[in-house]
């Protein structure tokens, strides 16, 4: 992996933490499991978009279906210059536009308002269909949570996408194995995602969700003939902070004073930066 990209993601992890910590609320662990995926899409040249013109008609679209990963998206948009750090600094402040889940109101760089799970993929089906109707070469990318796949609307959308042969639709499944209260496969026993999505008519690929070279390579592979693509990105929830990794209790909480030191050490955050 490119050392520069690794360093950039470390900086973004720090930015996500400081923004969430100062805002008083964040889904840190979820953001850390999907950071490299969103970074690869926006920074490694996978998504065709114009940072100067977020509404460019022919752009590829990205929908964060697992909306609670919003801070990871905002941080990457800061890196690309679509969002300013000053704007991000208003996160959760009264009167600001930057909330805990992505919302299109006053934020043209966000493609879809999400937060309630199971909405992003169905909306993306419409976007990909719209691109097809217009004969555009553009694609629609979606980041989906593995816990989110418990929502029935995901499977309505999965059936429609394959039936409509939306080979311009690419879904990345953030397979971190955890949901809010438990492991995904202990909450509802899952037969393999691979089999499930393949049986719904999708081309399924696998990648390490933190290895940006692998991600890049997988995302750049051409789609299967007239089939939508699902990429299972194997990730670690809370990646980068050992205390948080693979533990569902970190789904929606910030560290207490004692735990804070461990976060600071892992993310190389000084006391001054916390002020």
């Amino acid at each position, binding site marked *: 992996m490119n050392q520069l990209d690794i360093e950039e993601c470390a900086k973004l992890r720090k930015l996500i933490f400081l923004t969430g910590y100062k805002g008083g609320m964040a889904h840190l662990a979820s953001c850390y499991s999907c950071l490299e995926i969103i970074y690869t899409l926006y920074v490694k040249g996978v998504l065709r978009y114009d940072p100067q013109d977020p509404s460019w*008609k022919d752009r590829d*679209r990205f929908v964060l279906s697992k909306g609670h990963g919003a801070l990871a998206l905002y941080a990457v948009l800061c890196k690309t210059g679509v969002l300013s750090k000053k704007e991000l600094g208003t996160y959760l402040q009264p009167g600001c536009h930057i909330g805990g889940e992505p*919302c*299109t109101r006053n934020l043209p760089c966000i*493609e*879809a*308002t999400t*937060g*309630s799970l*199971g*909405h992003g993929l*169905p*909306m*993306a*089906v*419409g*976007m*990909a*269909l*719209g*691109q097809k*109707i*217009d004969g555009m070469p553009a694609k629609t990318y979606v980041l989906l949570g593995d816990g989110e796949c418990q929502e*029935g*609307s995901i499977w*309505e*959308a999965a*059936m*429609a996408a394959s*039936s*409509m042969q939306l080979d311009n639709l690419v879904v990345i499944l953030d397979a971190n194995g955890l949901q809010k209260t438990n492991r995904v496969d202990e909450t509802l026993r899952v037969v393999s995602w691979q089999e499930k999505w393949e049986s719904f008519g999708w081309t399924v690929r696998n990648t390490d969700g933190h290895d940006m070279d692998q991600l890049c390579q997988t995302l750049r592979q051409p789609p299967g003939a007239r089939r939508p693509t699902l990429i299972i990105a194997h990730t670690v929830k809370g990646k980068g902070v050992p205390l948080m990794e693979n533990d569902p209790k970190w789904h929606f909480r910030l560290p207490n004073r004692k735990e804070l030191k461990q976060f600071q050490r892992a993310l190389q955050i000084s006391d001054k930066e916390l002020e």
Partner: protein
Amino acid sequence: MNSACIGALMALAEKDTRVLYLTADSGEGGLDKLFRMNFSDRSFNFGIAEQNTVAAAAGLACTGKIPFVFTAAPFIAYRAFEFVRDDICLQDLNVKLIGSGSGISVSSLGPTHHTTEDIAVLRSLPNLMILSPATPKQAEECIKLAYQHTGPVYIRIGMNKEKEFFGDGYKMEPAKNDVIRSGKDAALYVTGSILEEAAEAAERLSEEGIELEVVNVGTIKPFDADSVIQNAGRFKNFFTLEEHNVTGGLAGMIAEVIARNGLGVRLHPVGLEDIFAESYGTLKDMRRANRLDGESVYRRIKEALV
């Protein structure tokens, strides 16, 4: 009303390629085939999956399309409610939702197929225009109005060969009620295809010397509140008639106007009194069983006034 809507929709599709027809396997008595035959590349059946249909319509609107989702009213209003809220209304997208078989017009299938709370739940959604045509001509006008309006629209239509009350030259305007019949003794506000029962009741009362002003409410939201305010100076008694729960429906809307403006008039709601509709049979049978037919409405108004 279905055929009037499909006809109007095809006329729009003819001149604007952004117009799409989406359904969740509803069919509308085979009328969808007519659209598909003429515009095969702009007609999409998403299967029995209303949530995805509504959300995909939002996604299509994001790409500049004007999707008309045409499917059974209860499955739009209830099954897909959160998708209407978050994906269409919250994002203020240019999607048109046409709920067919609203009220109790799908009489024989029972309460799961009735739509007797849709006004109550959907009028609470910001950004959503709600239209409730009474006749085929008004349904046709609703489709045109929905197209002209940039933003989310819900149209609740009946499906029982409704009687026509409007002439060929009729034009519908948002937030403007139609006076179907002038009167001096009381006002009867009515919405949807049940207008014909209101007209029948008014005719019966007229024979007995009671003259009702019958006001048809075609646009639920925005609502013509001025009509109520002005009529409060003319009438002491207001009646409402709807194939809907009076809670949150037309009666609730008018009660809000009366209370907010301190109008000091008496409101007599006629509709479903916080119940699901009873019985089976034809629409006429159902209206009779639920005391919503012309004869019952006549009796209830007479009892209140005499």
